[in-house]
């Protein structure tokens, strides 16, 4: 059974290789092949889950060491997999949602001439993501980490003929690279400190302490901060969040799979996986919490201002991941809820994105919500599934988001002290804003007057429901959005499932769970109400009003890009230009100047070579004269 673990990764990888190398003859059925490989991987995942459930809790973790990868004396990197409860949760989320989105893409990308490549990249993404969550050491995790970055790059820039897509892809990769730098420094720190970077020896497993306990807190804080930097890059947390909005240039299934459900949550996985390190480094944890809290609000505000449906959802993703990071930063009281929110978020956000994709599909790829309106009549299935996702994300009681978010808010309060109050307040505020902007999206898209206009070529959009390959995944995900949370909370099943890996502690909340739930619900209702007052009662202007300074800033991603541009890009390119000048004029100029000087002196000197033999004879004679004179002088002295 354990031999299935490598196959989990191998199946989609084989699919990607097959599709990329197979050439045109696979154009006709390549997408089904890819979907099959994804489904196969999902099946392997289910089989492994079944096998894991059949074992005792203590024996659930499985290690498979494939081969020695980079052996250099003390530096021993292996290709090995570690499958435990945490990994399998991710595996199932990735392959499950992944398969659904493959299926969805069959319909969504039906008319794209490069569909085969698209599916190859999707499969490549699955393989990399699975590698990321299955790796048993940080270096192999790093491979998956950058692998998903590559897949993300390829998929964001899939429509390469659009310069905006190409730029967005490049930006995503670059910002992620900054994060990756953090990960590689973290690995170097681990190696220098412990001589290893494998999970088992380093972090310890259930019952055994890892080596991290030996190190000083300063070192661990450094490692933790570097890991956080990596997480920020991948999970679009402040200050490395700027790429996510632009990443919406990619096809919508990509946004659903990579930039909502799976890849962007890798940061949460990394922090949860490294729990042993963070638990021993409180300063690092505090930083994690702060980053999560800031991003939570940041993303939410951005989400409120965007008129582009996908960008609004992207802001929401950022904000929701902020929740997870915050929860993960809380330590043992939050890890499980971070992962739980991650999974439920995977369902409802993927569903929301697919819904958005369906809307765009029916609206000639129009993304501006101000050009939608009243679509519920035209695409009922989309409306219903999107609506369920909407209810889930705002935390409507009984749906998935309600349970997971509620737990995080509870845990935030449970942090205790002033910190607890601040964090609780922030999460509550976030919940309210979430309700606000999601209601806004809902109202602008599906309710009110129809506001669509002919596109640039004069085609009036004819909103229509999507084909069944697209509808089925939306429906399945809607089910997940509705029931997953309840299922997980029932008997605290998810808690017991993950506890052996992440550990768990109950904090002492100053508020009772019921109070928290009530306040949360109140905040949610308030958010919905404000939103309805603003967008539900009066017609929405097609041209966005100027808005307040905050709105304008939020529309520009709270000036993040402007900041980056002013602080990094412009000085950077100025530096590069200056160095180019220095290289050609300074270093080369020095060398060429030397050459020119020698050349100049020589060309003067060569005039002595006038070609007259008598002149040469004179030089010789003069030389002899000097020689004789010198000799005589030397002898007389």
């Amino acid at each position, binding site marked *: 059974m354990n031999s299935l673990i490598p196959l989990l990764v191998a199946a989609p990888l084989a699919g990607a290789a097959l599709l990329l190398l197979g050439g045109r003859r696979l154009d006709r059925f390549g997408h089904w092949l890819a979907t099959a490989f994804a489904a196969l991987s999902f099946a392997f995942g289910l089989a492994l889950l079944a096998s894991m459930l059949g074992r005792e809790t203590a024996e659930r973790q499985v290690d498979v060491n494939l*081969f020695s*990868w*980079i*052996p*250099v*004396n*003390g*530096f021993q990197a*292996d290709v090995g997999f570690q499958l435990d409860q945490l990994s399998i949760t991710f595996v199932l989320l990735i392959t499950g949602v992944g398969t659904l989105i493959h299926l969805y893409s069959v319909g969504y990308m039906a008319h794209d001439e490069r569909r085969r490549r698209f599916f190859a990249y999707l499969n490549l993404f699955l393989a990399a993501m699975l590698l990321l969550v299955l790796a048993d050491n940080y*270096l192999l995790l*790093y*491979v998956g*980490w*950058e692998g998903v970055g*590559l897949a993300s*790059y390829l998929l964001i*820039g899939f429509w*390469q*003929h*659009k*310069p905006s*897509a*190409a730029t967005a*892809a*490049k930006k995503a*990769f670059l910002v992620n*690279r*900054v994060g990756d*730098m953090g990960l*590689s*420094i973290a*690995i*170097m720190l681990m*190696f*220098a*400190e*412990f*001589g*290893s970077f*494998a999970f*088992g*020896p*380093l972090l*310890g497993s259930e019952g*055994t*302490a*890892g*080596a991290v*306990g*030996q*190190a000083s807190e300063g*070192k661990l804080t450094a490692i933790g901060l570097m890991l956080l930097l990596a997480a920020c890059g991948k999970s679009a947390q402040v200050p490395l969040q700027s790429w996510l909005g632009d990443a919406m240039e990619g096809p919508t299934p990509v946004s659903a799979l990579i930039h909502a459900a799976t890849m962007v949550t890798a940061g949460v996985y990394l922090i949860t996986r490294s729990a042993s390190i963070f638990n021993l480094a409180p300063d690092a944890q505090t930083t994690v919490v702060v980053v999560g809290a800031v991003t939570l609000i940041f993303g939410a505000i951005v989400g409120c201002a965007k008129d582009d449906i996908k960008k609004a959802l992207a802001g929401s993703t950022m904000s929701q991941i902020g929740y997870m990071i915050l929860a993960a930063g809380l330590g043992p009281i939050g890890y499980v809820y971070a992962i739980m929110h991650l999974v439920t978020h995977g369902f409802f956000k993927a569903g929301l994105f697919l819904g958005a994709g369906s809307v765009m599909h029916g609206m000639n790829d129009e993304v501006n919500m101000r050009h939608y309106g009243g679509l519920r009549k035209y695409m009922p299935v989309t409306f219903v599934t999107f609506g369920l996702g909407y209810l889930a994300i705002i935390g409507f009681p009984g749906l998935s988001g309600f349970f997971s978010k509620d737990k995080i808010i509870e845990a935030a309060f449970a942090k205790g002290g002033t910190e607890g109050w601040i964090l609780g307040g922030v999460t509550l505020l976030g919940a309210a804003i979430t309700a606000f902007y999601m209601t806004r999206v809902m109202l602008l898209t599906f309710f009110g007057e129809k506001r669509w206009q002919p596109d640039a070529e004069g085609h009036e959009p004819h909103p229509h429901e999507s084909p069944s390959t697209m509808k089925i995944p939306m429906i399945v995900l809607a089910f997940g959005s509705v029931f997953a949370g309840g299922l997980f909370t029932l008997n605290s099943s998810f808690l017991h499932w993950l506890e052996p890996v992440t550990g768990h502690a109950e904090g002492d909340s100053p508020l009772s769970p019921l109070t928290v739930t009530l306040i949360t619900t109140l905040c949610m209702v308030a958010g919905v109400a404000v939103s309805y007052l603003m967008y539900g009662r009066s017609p929405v202007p097609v041209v966005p009003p100027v808005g307040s300074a905050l709105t304008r800033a939020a529309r520009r991603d709270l000036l993040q890009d402007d900041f980056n541009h002013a602080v990094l890009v412009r000085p950077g390119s100025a530096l*590069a*230009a200056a*160095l*180019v000048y220095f*290289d050609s004029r300074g*270093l080369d100029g020095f*060398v060429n100047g030397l*050459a020119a000087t020698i050349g100049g002196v020589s060309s003067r000197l060569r005039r002595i070579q006038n070609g007259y033999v008598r002149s040469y004879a004179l030089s010789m004679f003069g030389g002899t004269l000097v020689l004789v004179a010198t000799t005589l002088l030397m002898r007389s002295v």
Partner: protein
Amino acid sequence: MSYLLTATCAVPAAGAVLTAALPAGTDDGRRRVTKIVALAVSLATLALAALVAVRFEPGGARYQLTESYSWIRSFGITFSLGADGIGTVLVLLTAVLVPVVLLASWHDADPERGAGGTADPATFENRRRTQAFFALILAVEAMVLVSFLATDVFVFYVFFEAMLIPMYFLIGGFGDRAGGPESARQRSYAAVKFLLYNLLGGLVMLAAVIGLYVIAQDQGFATFDLPTLTGAVADGKLVVNPTAEKALFLGFFFAFAVKAPLWPLHTWLPNAMGESTAGTAVLITAVVDKVGTFAMLRFCLGLFPDASKTFAPAILVLSLIGIMYGALLAVGQKDIKRLIAYASISHFGFIIMGIFAMTSQGQSGATLYMVNHGISTAALMLVAGFLISRRGSRLIADYGGVQKVAPVLAGSFLIGGLATLSLPGLAPFVSEFLVLVGTFTRYPVIGIIATFGIVLAALYVLVLYQRTMTGPVKDSVRGMHDLKVRELAVVAPLVALTILLGVYPKPLTDIVNPAVDATLSQVHETDPAPAHPVAATPGGEQK
């Protein structure tokens, strides 16, 4: 005594002579005979090199398959060859790349295609052009192979310098299609610059070689034999006074730093790589320059251990500057080939950093880096060459949207680029990470700063890719055809090797590690031990 190593070096040398002697002509048939003969010779060399690698026992003696022939007896100079782990992998690299380069340069020397020939195809130089080009490449290969295998300092020096002659003609005589009327002047400038820089380095080294001999002779070691000298140095039988050792070290190092090239001695490389054909550029950066870094590892560390340690921090700083400087300049380039050249400068910074970090990870990483950089840059540069040969321009701004019209070309270019930016899973990642880790364990600050290099690498590669391959299809690239079979045959092995060595580099590390350990023991260095080793942890399991 086996003759394997001599044969490995002699086959390309003989092939060069044979190729040059083939009947001249301007018709395609005669040219094709020349090309096929050259390719066959290079493949035979590859077979011999593979045999060397197979016969080489990783656990065995430091130098294996040794051969020695008396040459200049009065100075104790022998023509001795011997393969150690580091040399063996570089021999393999050379033997793999040369056939690829030959295949990639198939038409570069045809007067009507490449620049540099005169208009009249019947002139003598044009009739002999193809033969000359292929013969020169084989000559370079032979000399590089001897340099990698020489265990005699003098023999190494001779071939290290002799390489300049064919390289000079390759750079100065053969350009790519992008050359305008200005290009002949630019090319000869580049060739002369290459020659002068390297000659200067070589002269300084010659002085140091003579100085070494004089000092060694004073103490009874009238020989240029490297194992004897390094052994004597290690055993304390040959004691060089510190000032003299430093001077000699700098003499050797200067030559290697020029060749490598290390900042600030790098400015010849962008010119040379920019003006020559893509094949020649690959030869320069992937093969010839490696002799410099290889020699640092073999000669500088072995002969002058104390001076190496003294200068290591300074050299590390220079290499760090090189990493950042090369990357930043690559970002600022407008010319595809010059961009790749500056990227190479950045990479050479990594290699030199790995060598002088004096850790086994660093040096193994540096050795692997030499191989991987060779392969990945070859992929990137040769595909760039194919691109340039189609459009006839080296300027990035002249391209755009190539992905749409030539997807395979764009894909290959992307893979080469991703390898250049050290994407995990591809070969350069392994080496780059090893170098970084190796540096970090001894010099944490330098290691961390160097890590910024990977961000910059991503920047220049992706900007290059975005500007040339994506976006709306420019009129100038419309109708550009995709890679042809010959070009695929060039790209495929490189891509395959990049992936293979990224996933399973163990065969190489097995060969390299013992040699690196031996080198480290020569400088009396050991890896810094981790503060809290995993093995010591109770309950921790050692893999």
